[in-house]
């Protein structure tokens, strides 16, 4: 079977591109070796959180940021396009109830109590907006991936009124319960009842209540609303270590939308190579258990991620390679020097390594020409960004996935 577009990778970039194409009636297949960054990172859509200093308004900061960072993916995208990707995304994920936009960043506490700006946040997190001031209570559940007293200590140190309490919720015979285990328990009424009972009488007036981001998976909206109603105050989630429950919700809602729009998704097949001819990609070849599959299409989206996901690889000789098409790479700042610097928190010479693209997000060769006419790239595969430092990860993935789909649709018309 031939598809219109095969998307490689099931992170936010791949899913955004696939959903937009499927909505436009294209036959889309997503092929991925596993679930993507959604299961590791929180579901906030960070467009631009830091440009040296914290960014208050991405809409205002983006043009200057793009100009100051040649080769950054944002150089290829207009603010209008990024704004359109955000509006589109908000409307496609009603369950998550995303709030915010490009005009103002929401500022959420991280699990250590640092302040992180995000353009768009799920409604279950918006109550943690530090800009609103007021008093915060952070609730520990005994979850080993969340330390509310430490979080509150750092917030208090920066002038926020914050305190913490630890609950001992009933976990049955199991004691090493992780985020997903807690999320399942929150979907049980008896568990929520126990939490509310333990909190009764321990809340100060006007205090907003923060939990680790484990308030259910499929029923998260109901769980969150019930807690707000019964505790009679804003309740919010704080993202913490992987696995990311909020990211799993994002994945579930996007893949459901994709299937409803007629798209297909295959997880568990690793794309290892391609068949190419006359400057075009004809097919990609994927390996699964004991067999290979060939997927043909008219266009392809490479959303296989960066070093973390394996889309870009570094071998023991120091050679860097794009794993599927062996595309040209850009962004290395080694200049013949070391690949890594001794100070951990410095920007590292390989941080911006990735695939360079043209204005239609097609990977380019050393001369800046598109390597394949019908191959587009999106997300963490792209060169030029340091999304974990910029707080731009999901924003970049969403906007470039959306834009790659747009380029394909434009090319068709």
């Amino acid at each position, binding site marked *: 079977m031939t598809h219109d577009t095969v998307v490689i990778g099931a992170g936010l970039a791949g899913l955004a591109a696939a959903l937009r194409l499927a909505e436009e009636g294209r036959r889309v297949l997503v092929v991925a070796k596993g679930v993507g960054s959604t299961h*590791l*990172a*929180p579901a906030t859509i960070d467009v631009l959180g830091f440009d040296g200093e914290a960014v208050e308004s991405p809409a205002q900061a983006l043009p200057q940021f793009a100009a100051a960072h040649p080769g950054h993916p944002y150089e290829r995208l207009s603010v209008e396009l990024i704004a359109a990707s955000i509006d589109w995304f908000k409307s496609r994920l009603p369950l998550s109830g995303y709030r915010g936009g490009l005009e103002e960043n929401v500022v959420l506490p*991280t*699990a*250590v*109590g*640092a*302040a*992180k700006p995000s353009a768009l946040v799920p409604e279950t997190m918006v109550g943690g907006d530090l800009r609103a001031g007021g008093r915060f209570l952070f609730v520990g559940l005994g979850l*080993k*991936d*969340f*330390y509310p*007293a*430490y979080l509150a*200590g*750092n917030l*208090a*140190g*920066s002038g926020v009124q914050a305190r913490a309490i630890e609950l001992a919720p009933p976990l049955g*015979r*199991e*004691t*090493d319960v992780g985020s997903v285990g807690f999320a399942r328990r929150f979907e049980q009424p008896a568990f929520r009842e126990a939490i509310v009972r333990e909190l009764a009488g321990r809340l100060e007036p006007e205090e907003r209540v923060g939990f680790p981001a484990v308030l259910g998976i499929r029923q998260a909206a109901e769980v969150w609303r019930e807690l707000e109603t019964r505790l009679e105050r804003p309740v919010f989630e704080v*993202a*913490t*270590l*992987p696995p990311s429950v909020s990211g799993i919700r994002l994945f579930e809602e996007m893949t459901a939308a994709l299937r409803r729009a007629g798209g297909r998704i295959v997880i568990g097949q690793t794309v290892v190579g391609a068949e190419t001819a006359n400057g075009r990609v004809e097919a990609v070849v994927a390996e699964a258990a004991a067999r290979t599959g060939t997927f043909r299409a008219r266009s392809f989206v490479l959303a296989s991620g*960066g*070093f*973390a*996901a*394996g889309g870009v*690889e*570094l*071998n*023991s*000789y*120091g050679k860097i390679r794009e794993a599927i098409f062996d595309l040209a790479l850009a962004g290395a700042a080694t200049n013949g020097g*070391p*690949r*890594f*610097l*001794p*100070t*951990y*928190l410095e920007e590292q010479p390989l941080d911006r390594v990735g695939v360079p693209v043209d204005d239609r997000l097609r990977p380019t060769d050393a001369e800046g020409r598109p390597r394949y006419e019908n191959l587009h790239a999106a997300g963490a595969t792209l060169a030029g960004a340091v*999304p*974990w*430092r910029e*707080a731009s*990860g999901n924003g970049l993935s969403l906007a470039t996935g959306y834009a790659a789909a747009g380029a394909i649709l434009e090319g068709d018309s």
Partner: protein
Amino acid sequence: VAALEAEVLVIGGGSTGVGVARDAAMRGLKTVLVERKDLADGTTGRYHGLLHSGGRYAVKDPEAARECIVENVILRRIASDCIEDTGGLFVSTPWDDPAFGDVFREGCRATGVPVEEIPVAEALRREPRLNPEISRAFSVPDAALDPWKLVWGCARSAQEHGAQILLYHRVVGLERDGQRVSGAAIRNDLTGEDLRIHADVVVNAAGAWAGQIAELAGCRVNVLPGKGIMIAMNHRLVNTVVNRCKMPADGDILVPIRTVSVIGTTDVRVADPDDLEVTQSEIDEMLDEGEKLVPGFREARALRAWAGARPLFSPEEVADTREVSRSHALLDHRERDGVEGLVTITGGKTTTFRLMAEVAVDAACAQLGVERACRTHEEPLPDSEDGHFYSLGSRLHAREPVPQSEELICECELITRHRLEEAMERRHTANLDDLRRTLRLGMGPCQGGFCSYRAAGILHAVERLDHRAANAALLSFLQERWKGVHPILYGDQMRQARLDDWIFQGLLRVQHLPT
């Protein structure tokens, strides 16, 4: 200034120092040990973990070989819980002269190292990943030795016998009373307080730093710090210690220890044992040598690289530190320099630490004018009383009967919340790296990716730290982890490091935390 009295003051908390403290305390001497950092922070905690059979030195350094095999047998008896009885192989790869095997066998026989040539097919059956082109193989009683368990076992035993151990206590001066060393001026680096320790005898067991200590008493001790780098690979590529059958050189040992295998090492003379850089060319050399022993070595996941400083004692200046004997050196400064009350014990290796302690305490006793017999070769260390060797599955075996009964804070090293909290309370430290040396926290494949935040959060609660101190603990641990990871970042470990970047810099944003 506060003051302490001791009969024996031991300087240095490596294997030699804690060995001396244990030996002296077991002989009934009032003993105090001072260490400028944590136990095993220096050379002992930075070696590959080989319990030598003596085979490595059988040809080149027969005296060292003899000492090794005697101590090997003793340590198997007294420190069984620190030892995994892996056995050892010496193999001739295509790069090694097969005729050296005969020289090697003769050397082993002459020095008392049990050796047996085994068929190549048997060696390959035992270690299927070995280079199939090997032409000869010899079996010797090498083993893996956990340096932290050893040092902490000696320290606990010394304390049980009345010794006092002061960590993060740095010697800032030795006090002279005429031609006699009468004690030391000490600075507590955690509190900034000064302390004076009066001692009848000072034992300088500062290893690669022994020259610096001796100089404080006006004595010249020529210790050449020899840098050796090692890489821990994320798997047991072999389950037997594997050596190249040739004259000792770089990158010719692969030691399976705990869940990893460690390839080593180099030997480069350095000026300062506190300044040990791991270079890219050294890494490449280790990986290339690893390929010769285990084809595909470069494809395996490397976890971490580090360097240690061997304390090589040389009576004269030499250019190549490989030419210096691995045997130990006892310097009685009364005889040597006319300075009473000071003994230096240096050179040697962790395998011979007990013997070094014995001769040092013998010399101390002679200066004190007392005669008391050494008993360290007879009395097992704590946890080694039953004589059972450690095995790879020991920790899992201890945990398996009660699955899910307790949270694992460090999944890689199977550290439960209870063990971590207990260690925090016992050690009373605000430094996560101290807990690493105690529990192996953060030493597994993720190199602290998941446990660092958890440990900082728990430390914040257990030690009632303020947020700045907890931040400092977290950030310095991340920097310490990075130090060993960045030289070997490629392949899967690069993926891991990038995930860790996302966690600490993207999700938590630790870079914005005040310290």
